[in-house]
C-alpha cells in the first residue's frame, strides 16, 4: 500500500525540477518543456488527492482533464510564437529576444 505522502513528495520533486528548467534554461522551447513538467506534477497531485481523499467525487479527475486542455492550448500558441519569432530574429534564445524590452 502506497501512502499519500509518497505521491506528494514525488510531485513536489517533479515540480521543482520543472521550475529549475523554466528559470535556468536559455532556449524558449526548453522553458516550455519545464512548464510541461510542472503541469504534470500538478496533475499527479490532483489525481492523488482525488484517490485518497474523495474517491466518490470526481472533481480531481475532471480538473486534471481541464489541465490537459489548457496545457495543449498553451503549447500550441507558445510554439507558434516561437516559430514566428524565429522567422524574424533567427533565434529563440530567451535572453536574445528583447523586442518588448522598451
Amino acid at each position, binding site marked *: *500500500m502506497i501512502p499519500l505522502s509518497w505521491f506528494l513528495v514525488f510531485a513536489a*520533486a517533479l515540480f521543482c*525540477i520543472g521550475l*529549475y528548467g523554466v528559470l535556468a534554461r536559455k532556449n524558449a522551447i526548453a522553458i516550455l518543456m519545464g512548464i510541461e513538467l510542472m503541469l504534470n506534477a500538478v496533475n499527479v497531485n490532483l489525481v492523488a488527492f482525488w484517490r485518497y481523499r474523495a474517491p466518490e467525487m*470526481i472533481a480531481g479527475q475532471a480538473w486534471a*482533464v481541464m489541465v490537459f486542455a489548457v496545457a495543449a492550448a498553451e503549447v500550441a500558441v507558445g*510554439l*507558434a510564437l516561437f516559430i*514566428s519569432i524565429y522567422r524574424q530574429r533567427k533565434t529563440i534564445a530567451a535572453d536574445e529576444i528583447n523586442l518588448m524590452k522598451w
Partner: protein
Amino acid sequence: MTTVQIIFIVAAAVTLGAAIMVVTTRKLLHAAVWLILSLLGVAVFYVLLNAGFLAVAQLVIYIGAIAILMIFAIMLTRHLALDIGPQVHRGWPWALLIAILLFGGLIWLLSSWSDVSTELPVMSSRADPLTDLGVALVSPNAYVIPFELASILLLAALIGAIYVAWPKKEKEG
C-alpha cells in the same frame, strides 16, 4: 515492501531522472526524448491511482501530440550555435537555489501536516470512475461549463496558433 511499492519507486526514479535530464541535457532534441520518457512515467502514476482514462489521455495528448509538436518546433527552429554554447543563463545557481528552497519548503509543509500518511481508501466494487468522469463532464450540475470553456479555449488556441505562425508578407510587417 509490496510489488506496488516497488513499481512506484522504479517509476518515480525513472520519471525524476528523465526530468532532470530534460532540464540539464545540452541537445534540445535529446531533451524532448527524455521529456517523453518522463511523461510516460507520469502515466504509470495515473495507473497506480486507478485513473486509467487519464493514463491513456496522457499517452495520447502529451506524448502523441505535445511532445511530437515540440520535436517539430525544435527541428523548425534549429540553431546550431545553441547546441554548442551553454544551455543555461548566467544566473542558473539562483534558479537552482529557488528550486531547492521550494522543495525544502514543500517537504517541511508536508511533514508538519498530520494527515499526510492517509491509507488508501478502498474503492467500492460498483464504483466506476470513468463513467462518473464522463457524466460529470457533461452534467449541468457539475462541469459542463468548464468543459465547454476548455473547448472554446482549444479552438481559440488553434486559430491563434495558425494566425501567429502564418508567414506574413514583408509590407504587412
